């Protein structure tokens, strides 16, 4: 299979899955016991012209049309970037997303950098020092890091560093300019909250991938050439170990990062997509909840695709097949 056919196949697969995701979302919506109108009206309370509102909502959602027509309209509007209307904030969902995504993005980006740098270094260190005291201690902490509920970790960090020591605010300050040291300071605890589990996971992947490659024959060849140990490990072993690790890290983006970021935003009051979605849940703002779920699925899909493609570019054995 040539490289181009492979990528084309992956792309086709991704399109198929994206269609599946949208279809699943549509049917989940229709399967739900409440129509979006009911939920919204329940939240309005008395004193409104209920029938008019219902009619407006239903025609907005196209609920008065036959099912297949609704389905096509739904997918068509999603593709055109019309993701529905947020009743809670009285603006299109797309506008809402445009103002909030950056907060999620900065949190996820900083946490990923933190986790990748620390996870890889820790993984390499423990692989080189295999079975040493340091390795055992690191293994214990990575196990703890994987097991600690990050929402609890976040609260404990607030309790210790914000409440007791007063080093940080207990809530994220949105008035800070995004590219400033103050903002970075404000994001310290959130990044640590989201990043700890990731560091623990990544360091374990890296360690086992390093160990697997350290026993390979080409490592002995590298040593026999007289290369210093730093080069043997840092170049020959590392480059091979990174192949599976990069894929795993990219695939991990969905589960750990989305769930984690959602809750981290809630704990620290960071107005990202997760925080926005939860607010919408309580405000019965249906379209927003659905939109955030869909975004999560689409970003996951994108990362899966990137992982596939990255792998073929990183591994010469596949690249030149």
């Amino acid at each position: 299979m040539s490289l181009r056919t492979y990528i084309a196949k992956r792309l086709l697969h991704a399109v198929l899955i994206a269609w599946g995701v949208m279809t699943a979302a549509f049917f989940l919506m229709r399967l739900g016991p409440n129509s979006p109108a009911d939920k919204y009206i329940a939240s309005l309370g008395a004193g409104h012209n209920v029938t008019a509102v219902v009619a407006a909502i239903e025609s907005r959602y196209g609920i008065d049309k036959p099912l297949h027509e609704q389905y096509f309209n739904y997918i068509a509007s999603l593709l055109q970037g019309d993701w529905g209307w947020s009743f809670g904030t009285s603006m299109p969902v797309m506008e809402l997303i445009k103002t909030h995504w950056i907060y999620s993005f900065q949190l996820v980006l900083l946490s990923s950098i933190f986790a990748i740098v620390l996870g890889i270094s820790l993984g390499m260190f423990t692989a080189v020092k295999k079975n040493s005291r340091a390795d055992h201690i690191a293994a214990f902490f990575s196990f703890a890091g994987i097991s600690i509920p990050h929402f609890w970790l976040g609260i404990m960090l607030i309790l210790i560093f914000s409440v007791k020591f007063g080093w940080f605010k207990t809530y994220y300050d949105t008035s800070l300019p995004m590219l400033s040291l103050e903002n970075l300071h404000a994001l310290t605890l959130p990044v640590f909250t989201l990043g700890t589990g990731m560091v623990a996971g990544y360091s374990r992947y890296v360690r086992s991938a390093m160990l697997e490659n350290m026993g390979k024959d080409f490592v002995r060849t590298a040593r026999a050439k007289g290369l210093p140990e730093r080069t043997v490990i840092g170049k020959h072993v590392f480059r091979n170990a990174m192949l599976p690790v990069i894929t795993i890290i990219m695939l991990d983006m969905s589960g750990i990062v989305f769930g984690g970021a959602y809750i981290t935003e809630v704990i620290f009051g960071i107005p990202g997509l997760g925080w926005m979605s939860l607010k919408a849940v309580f405000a019965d703002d249906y379209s927003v909840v659905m939109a955030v779920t869909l975004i999560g699925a689409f970003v996951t899909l994108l990362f899966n695709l990137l992982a596939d493609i990255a792998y073929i570019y990183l591994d010469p054995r596949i690249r030149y097949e």
Partner: protein
Amino acid sequence: MRLAAYYWERTKRQRPAMAGLAFIIFLIILAVSGPFFTVSPTQVNFDEKNIPPPGFTLEQSIYNASSGGFVTTVQRGTWEHPLGTDGMGRDMLAMLISGARVSLLVGLLATGIAIIIGALIGITSAYFGGAMDSVLMRATDIFMTFPFLLLLILIVYLFGSSLTLIIMAIGLTGWTGTARLVRSETLSLRTREFIMASKALGASHLRIIFYHLLPNTLSSIIVLATLSIPGAILAEAALSFIGLGDPQVASWGNILNAGQGSLQTAWWVAVEPGMMLFFTVLAFNFMGEGMREAFEPGGD
């Protein structure tokens, strides 16, 4: 049975796994016997609110109606409430034990549902192959694309948040990993001699699936199940923590949610349920990891 005894022997040698098992057994005993020695976890008593655990003190200002001002009193922990009380005077120990019951229920039932669905889908997919395999695996891909927690939140939002529904939802969304694992294990088994032989002897599909294929994938399924339990427990806790849990029951996530609001005063309300959650997840992880090592062929 002999195989089970063999695996047990090998698992027994893993010390962290045994510590984990001991903790889980302790938790189960606590969860079952709790109602017999604790007060009701929902019993509210504002006279006894925010009592710290014994050995700690808390200064709080209480509005005194007779003098019309705030009086600072020092609240001391008592052995009557060994883990203190929350902001509504509920006994923390009783609530934590109730939470243990919830978490264990969620962990075991939701994982059970997920494993059954996953095993059935995986085995059907691999055994019949062809179009069936394509359809089921694409469906699995679609499911896997939704971030787990986000999908859960959506489901709970759409269908309500009773504990039963939460358990169902976690089970119904968490089967993808099992499906993939069982599928790949079955694929490698499908062409083995003993399966071919029973096919040649005219065994029915169901017989082959339930007598030959499933038992042979069981050890991997058990390990995966053990390692999935923490995920289910954490999912419920996360839902409860952000306020989407079942408001009728005291679960660790609910308590933690309340605890976040009173960090400035009653720190133990947030610390204690998190600790329980942490140790429980750690225990299951230790056990699963130990089992994985013990079950690995030749991994001595």
